């Protein structure tokens, strides 16, 4: 199908983009990579009157280390994350996750910020940002505000971004030498949306994991953390018995939602499959 007609503007600076967004109201949409937006336009699932192309905005570009944080601009593409040496060193979970995002031709355009702002519960970056305790840096008419990933994802495709705000970048604490991670998703075809996925990190000392963060995606309306399973594992010597307990706890505390092809029961089962594999890999 073909999209309905719309106007297109490409502001040069952030302030201009914010003004255009305010003027455009509900009929305006931001476009960066556009890898979800263009599909919805082509299918006429969305008919905005104007697209505001934000790809020229300098504030939204680049991957840098700022103090003890890795700053990833909203316009950074999935490919840039996949290929970045800074990401490989300071946020290796993201490097491991990137190849699971669709296919290279899509990763070459799709952006970090676009994925976070869209808030798809089946997407990789919302789950990773939650696991890595990312801070979202947002600009709006009132200036800058910062919000933790934990408070950012509210509901299905719903974040705490206001309609007149733009996600500029995120900051992620740098990984230290004790950090271990696990990322995997179960999908019917490589690159498809996951049936269920897990993004996990922990601080490892011998057979003990501390500061565990286990985030499941494609399971609920938002990415969801297995907080009780995390608490159970934290600081304890990891053995088969504890892994079995953690698996049962995670299955118990998270309520999976069915999707068009997979039942809630199947997803509930896969939570345990992923956590068992993840724990074994992180402690190996």
């Amino acid at each position, binding site marked *: *199908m*073909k*999209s*309905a*007609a*719309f*106007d*297109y503007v490409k502001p040069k600076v952030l302030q201009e983009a914010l003004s255009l967004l305010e003027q455009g109201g509900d009929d305006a949409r931001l*476009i960066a990579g*556009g*890898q979800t937006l*263009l*599909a919805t*336009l*082509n*299918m006429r699932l969305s008919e905005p*009157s*104007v*697209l505001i*192309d934000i*790809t020229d905005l300098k504030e939204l570009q680049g991957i840098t280390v700022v103090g003890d944080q890795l700053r990833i601009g909203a316009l950074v593409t999935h*490919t840039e994350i996949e290929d970045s040496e800074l990401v490989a060193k300071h946020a290796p979970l993201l490097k491991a996750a990137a*190849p699971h995002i*669709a*296919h*290279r*031709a*899509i990763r*070459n*355009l799709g952006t970090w910020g676009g994925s976070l702002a869209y808030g798809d519960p089946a997407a990789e970056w919302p789950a990773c940002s939650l696991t890595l305790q990312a801070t979202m840096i947002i600009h709006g008419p009132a200036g800058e505000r910062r919000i933790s990933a934990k408070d950012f994802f509210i509901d299905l495709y719903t974040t705490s971004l206001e309609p007149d705000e733009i996600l500029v970048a995120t900051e992620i604490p740098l990984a230290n030498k004790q950090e271990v991670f696990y990322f995997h998703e179960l999908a019917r*075809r*490589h*690159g498809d949306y996951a049936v269920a996925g897990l993004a996990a990190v922990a601080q490892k000392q011998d057979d003990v994991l501390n500061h565990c963060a286990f985030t499941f995606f494609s399971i609920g309306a938002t990415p969801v953390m297995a907080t009780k399973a995390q608490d159970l594992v934290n600081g304890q010597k990891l053995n088969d018995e504890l892994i079995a307990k953690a698996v049962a706890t995670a299955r118990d505390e998270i309520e999976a939602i069915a999707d068009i092809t997979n039942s809630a029961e199947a997803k509930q089962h896969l939570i345990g499959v992923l956590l068992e594999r993840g724990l074994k890999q992180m402690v190996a």
Partner: protein
Amino acid sequence: MSLKKKISMTVNGQLVNAEIESRKHLVDFLREDLHLKGPHLGCEQGACGACTVKVDGQIIRGCLFLAVQANGKVVETVEGLTKNGVLADLQESFLRHNAMQCGFCSSGMLLAAAELIEKQPKATREQVREWISGNYCRCTGYHSIVDAIVAVLDTRAKGQTNKPVVAHA
């Protein structure tokens, strides 16, 4: 508000100026306005990869990119990349392994495969399969396509080039 936009881009080495509707995606512009029929349209939602073209040196989905977004950029299609020889050994290998079949997916497959060979010269057969899983072949001819790509990776790794299957005039 003006729905038509003036754009200028380099397509297969030539500067192109045009006035188009904002909503026109890149492959419709290439096919309808420039009569380049190499990039195909399949699903128009990013699933099939038939529309794959290069923008500023990277493969993209031409149906998920507006022509107006390509303003000021360098666009390459299978036509241009065939002419300048970038795809030559892949094309020879596709012929040798009977990986063309109906040809609908071939331009996208060739461009995706070329980026794989550039980015992952040591790719395993499994990685080749993962990489091209974003390009649908309606004839389900994946086996021969994977064979053809793996053969190019092998010959490149040995520092050789494929010998032509067909004698060129």
